[in-house]
């Protein structure tokens, strides 16, 4: 069964260049090194050929080849969800304040769609450049447990999907930022505060 393409188009060229470079380098090395590095180069070429990196799925990296925004060829997609033990109208009102939206601090937020109590969509611009766009969908949690908020955010990663892999591994990914934003919202809505340890004392100098 052919694997689903998950490399970004820009990445594929990088994989070809990297794979060829590794193989050329390996040709002049002794046996074991030649086999190892050459094999790695071959693997990169194979991924470029299939357009699929098997590490992306476990790392949670998803490419959208047809984003619903003009002039953008493809994006990476972040999806996170949270259940908040508050009524839907209250949760919706919280998100209507654009400073509460995920990654809002990265630019100017424009709301692009508002369906009261159900959905909010927005995009974030910085100096005429589209940083990311996203949506929040709200629905009632089963058993009167409050509101489920589904967040979807799309962006063009700096450094292609390799950059996204690095961000994911170091814990600085948009995925993490969106999840943290949803958690903060839950804490604020459920308790009126978002606990922090910033500024607490320590025995460090």
């Amino acid at each position, binding site marked *: 069964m052919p694997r689903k393409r998950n490399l970004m188009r820009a990445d594929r060229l990088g994989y070809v260049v990297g794979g060829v470079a590794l193989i050329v380098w390996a040709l002049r090395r002794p046996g074991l090194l030649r086999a190892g590095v050459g094999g790695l180069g071959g693997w990169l070429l194979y991924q470029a050929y299939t357009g699929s990196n098997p590490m992306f799925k476990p790392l949670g990296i998803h490419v959208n080849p047809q984003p619903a925004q003009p002039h953008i060829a493809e994006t990476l997609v972040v999806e996170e969800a949270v259940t908040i033990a508050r009524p839907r109208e209250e949760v919706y009102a919280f998100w209507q304040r654009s400073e509460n939206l995920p990654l809002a601090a990265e630019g100017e937020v424009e709301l692009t769609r508002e369906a009261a109590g159900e959905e909010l969509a927005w995009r974030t611009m910085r100096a005429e450049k589209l940083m990311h766009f996203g949506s929040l969908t709200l629905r009632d949690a089963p058993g009167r447990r409050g509101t489920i908020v589904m967040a979807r955010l799309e962006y063009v990663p700096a450094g292609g999907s390799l950059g996204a892999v690095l961000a994911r591994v170091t*814990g600085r990914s948009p995925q*993490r930022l969106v999840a*943290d934003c949803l*958690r903060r919202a839950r*804490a604020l809505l459920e*308790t009126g505060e978002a606990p922090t*340890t910033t500024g607490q*004392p*320590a*025995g460090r100098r």
Partner: protein
Amino acid sequence: MVKGDILGHEFMGEVVELGAAVINLKRGERVVVPFPIACGNCFFCQKAMFSLCENSNPNAGMAEKLWGYSPCGIYGYSHLLGGYAGGQAEYVRVPFADVGPLRVPDSLSDEQVLFLSDILPTGYMAAENCDIQPGDTIAVWGCGPVGQFAIASAQLLGADRVIAIDRFPERLRLAAMKLGAETIDYSEDNVLEALKELTGGRGPDACIDAVGMEAHAYHDIAYAYDRMKQAMLLESDRPVALREAIMACRSGGTISVAGVYGGLIDKFPAGALMNRSLTIRTGQTHVQRYMRLLLARIEKGEIDPSFIITHRMKLDEAPAAYRMFRDKQDDCIKVVLTP
């Protein structure tokens, strides 16, 4: 942990300042603070599973990576659980103070109520998780402070016999003399054989692991294997007591895990667990659920938790106290630090 972190998750003290929303406490009141930080409003707090509070761990993203989802924040503990400054200090900040801290009556001394902050409820929850029936025999691995309270709690909850397992004579002595438990010294005896014999060939009805990830063992090949894998960073925890508790438990029984585990373990006897219908129950203690109930038991004289204290020291002697506890010098079981 990071160098300079303020330790201490079992503490009590006097209220000196209050946030605007804390209307149930007053300045000057003496309170015991539960170690799990809990908001009181979330799904888990509403179900009285306070140590699973969804709103108190600012580093929840870190915990999710390792554990799938995040439990609550904890004072003076791993940064996975928030890295909150702890109570081994003259002042401590207590978030959600309208939910956690318990006011204690003047009739009881600090030492009688201090352990409501963690280890008494922890031992109690470990025993409660055993679902003790009349006639039951409970085996407890580890006779440190939590193990001692697990033994005492199993007795309070109606266990017929409690068998205590450790290797330090002072701990076994305390379990036997103070609490009347039967004892097994695992540095001398084969625990599985001894338990089988003591329980008429059937095994204890429930087993409490009050040891956790830093277990020790003697003449045990699996232990040498764990040490080796830990040295190579291939395994984070040494589950010697947990494995033994699973193998020892009678069929259909319960293994109650109070000892702390952090990461991954090897050679887990899943076959014994499945084929013999065993149940594992565990968790960081939902302290807030047990504090009032246990305070009432202390007031009625059913238990005086101060019996485990062997040393009283000043806060600035803490490094020496930690060394003494680690090296098990001077029959040290529990140190209480005061500013």
